[in-house]
């Protein structure tokens, strides 16, 4: 017997796009569009019942170079900061045209956490039937690796270079998924290419809710992170396993009932009343950092790694979780 593939074999993000070798974001979009299509089929009986509005960025410039396109779905790009606004307009038009389906807005971390944050907030607050997918490769990669507000502490970028007076990026990462959840939208989540099954599940869930949803997807960028091409998924998984990337879901902004997915990697998860309250991670964050050129300099600055560890703990605390992050020798 032929086994049913775990996800549709239909492609919406077609081969032939011009993304860098080993691009993690390309994996995210490939999986996300497949998942979206499955959700549309289940909800509307039509796997093609969606359109994409995309912000300027890596995944935009590599996918739609006139006269070619990688998109097998109605697709529009307007500018950098307005994917959410353009998606709002498409959604409104579809309502009037009686087209059943959902709009998928896509932006990178720069286009979402920084320049597009206002348009995103407006779209979420107005309750448009749009899923916003933020592919988070943690810097402005399209312009050549400049820090964004989503760049993690300590990371090298071309505008956060380590030096005599700098440890690299000097601010903690901004978590847009939490900002999105604060709009009390039906569904906000984080996901990662390091856990494709979880990613697919979440995109489908987001696509099926009525109203706005937001997913922040961790994507590796070998070019910007200075990582081996073939290790993207592995590195993304290490981010989850070491506590650097939390996987969670928040429905209707109810942070008290946040759902935290177990990180794996031998971590022990403790619950109270069905709620994750403590995670003892087994793998130190150094396991995640060590593959990446952008964090190389930190290994000569142990105090910076300690600071990063403290920030990650603080982030988990915001999620209501006491995170125990081991040091390499422990």
């Amino acid at each position: 017997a032929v086994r049913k593939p775990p996800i549709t074999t239909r492609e919406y993000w077609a081969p032939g796009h011009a993304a860098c070798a080993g691009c993690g974001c390309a994996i995210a979009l490939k999986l996300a569009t497949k998942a979206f299509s499955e959700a549309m089929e289940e909800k509307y009986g039509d796997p093609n019942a969606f359109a994409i509005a995309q912000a300027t960025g890596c995944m935009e410039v590599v996918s739609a170079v006139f006269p070619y396109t990688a998109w097998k779905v109605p697709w529009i790009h307007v500018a950098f900061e307005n994917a959410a606004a353009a998606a709002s307009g498409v959604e409104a038009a579809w309502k009037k045209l009686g087209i059943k389906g959902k709009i998928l807005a896509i932006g990178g971390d720069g286009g979402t956490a920084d320049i597009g944050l206002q348009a995103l907030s407006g779209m979420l607050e107005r309750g448009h039937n749009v899923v916003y997918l933020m592919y988070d490769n943690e810097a402005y990669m399209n312009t050549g690796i400049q820090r964004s507000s989503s760049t993690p502490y300590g990371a090298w970028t071309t505008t956060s270079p380590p030096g005599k007076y700098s440890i690299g990026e000097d601010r903690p990462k901004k978590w847009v998924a939490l900002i999105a959840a604060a709009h009390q939208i039906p569904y906000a989540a984080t996901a990662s290419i390091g856990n494709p099954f979880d990613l697919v599940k979440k995109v489908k869930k987001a696509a099926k809710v009525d109203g706005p949803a937001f997913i922040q997807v961790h994507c590796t960028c070998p070019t910007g992170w200075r990582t081996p091409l073939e290790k993207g998924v592995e590195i993304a998984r290490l981010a989850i396993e070491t506590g650097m990337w939390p996987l969670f879901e928040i429905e209707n902004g109810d942070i008290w009932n946040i759902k935290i997915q177990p990180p794996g990697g031998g971590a022990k998860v403790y619950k109270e009343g069905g709620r994750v309250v403590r995670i003892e991670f087994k793998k130190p964050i150094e396991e995640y950092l060590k593959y990446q050129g952008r964090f190389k300099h930190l290994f000569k600055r142990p105090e910076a790694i300690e600071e990063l560890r403290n920030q990650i703990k603080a982030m988990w605390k915001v999620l209501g979780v006491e995170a125990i992050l081991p040091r390499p020798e422990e």
Partner: protein
Amino acid sequence: MPIRTVMKANEAAAWAAKLAKPKVIAAFPITPSTLVPEKISEFVANGELDAEFIKVESEHSAISAVVGASAAGVRTFTATASQGLALMHEVLFIAAGMRLPIVMAIGNRSLSAPINIWNDWQDSISQRDTGWIQFYAENNQEALDLILLAYKVAEDERVLLPAMVGFDAFILTHTVEPVEIPDQEVVDEFLGEYEPKHAYLDPKRPITQGTLAFPAHYMEAKYLVWDAMEKARKVIDEAFAEFEKRFGRKYQKIEEYKTDDAEIIFVTMGSLAGTLKDWVDKKREEGYKVGAAKMTVYRPFPVEEIRALAKKAKVLGFIEKDISIGLYGAVFIDASAALVNESERPLMLDFIAGLGGRDVTFGQLDDALRIAEEALEKGEVEKPIHWIGLRKELL
């Protein structure tokens, strides 16, 4: 039967939008144009207009949402002014480049700093290179009519460019005037249903819009926008002719007033044309050979019409509420360019007036006339640009 009533230009714009039946409207409040979205939201709330009204969080998102909706294949509308239009600037190029026939009403207002809510044309004049067709209304009836005309021209297959209609802040936006609201059926016949042939986002026919173009293709895309604007000249004339036939009101790119035997002709736009015509009447009584001309269409620039006008005058003066800092007023610069290869040209003068809502008085027009007469007497222009109505004691 058309309804004869009284209303502000903002209301006239909202009525025009209602008559055009856009399916998606996105707008953000800004003085002096706020009443347009207010009135439209009333129409939608009462079920008089079957449209989605998106209450966006900025003008940037207003135009972006309208671009999204227009690209998805529906007729759209928005309204703004001043800083709001400046904030839209980036997306205005995109709307034109994507060939989306969006229509936008502008309550023409100055730009900061200093912040000022009153009338001049700096906001829309500053968008002249974006690829938008630009109309300027003299009164509230024109505001209504020109919005209908804007749809007609913008959606024409030969054009497919966005269009804006400007009407002066407060002088028109907040002033009640008699306005005739045309019959819905006649408007329906005039505009027809909007059926996009190139811009749609339909799952049954997936297309990609808003691509990257390398140097191998970019220039042709821009050329085609320029060419479409050139073609719009003829389409505008056709639309004006059809409009006159259906609605009985005549429009021209440049409307002349007492120019036939005039030695000095002043050209202006918007509500100032009304003042200017009144003033010309007075000056004619006093024995001056002056005439007036109103520019209704600023983009595409009415090159042929300016040339024809220039042939009639010995002195051609432009009275404009905008300034291209570093040179002259934009209308004067453009008109000069239109006449550059003419073998015979009138003496040309530029008068910057009424910035930030300063009243343009007969006294100021008299000052302009004195300067024009002096040029005529000497047979030359010493200084092409003059700021009239300046309070020299403050400088």
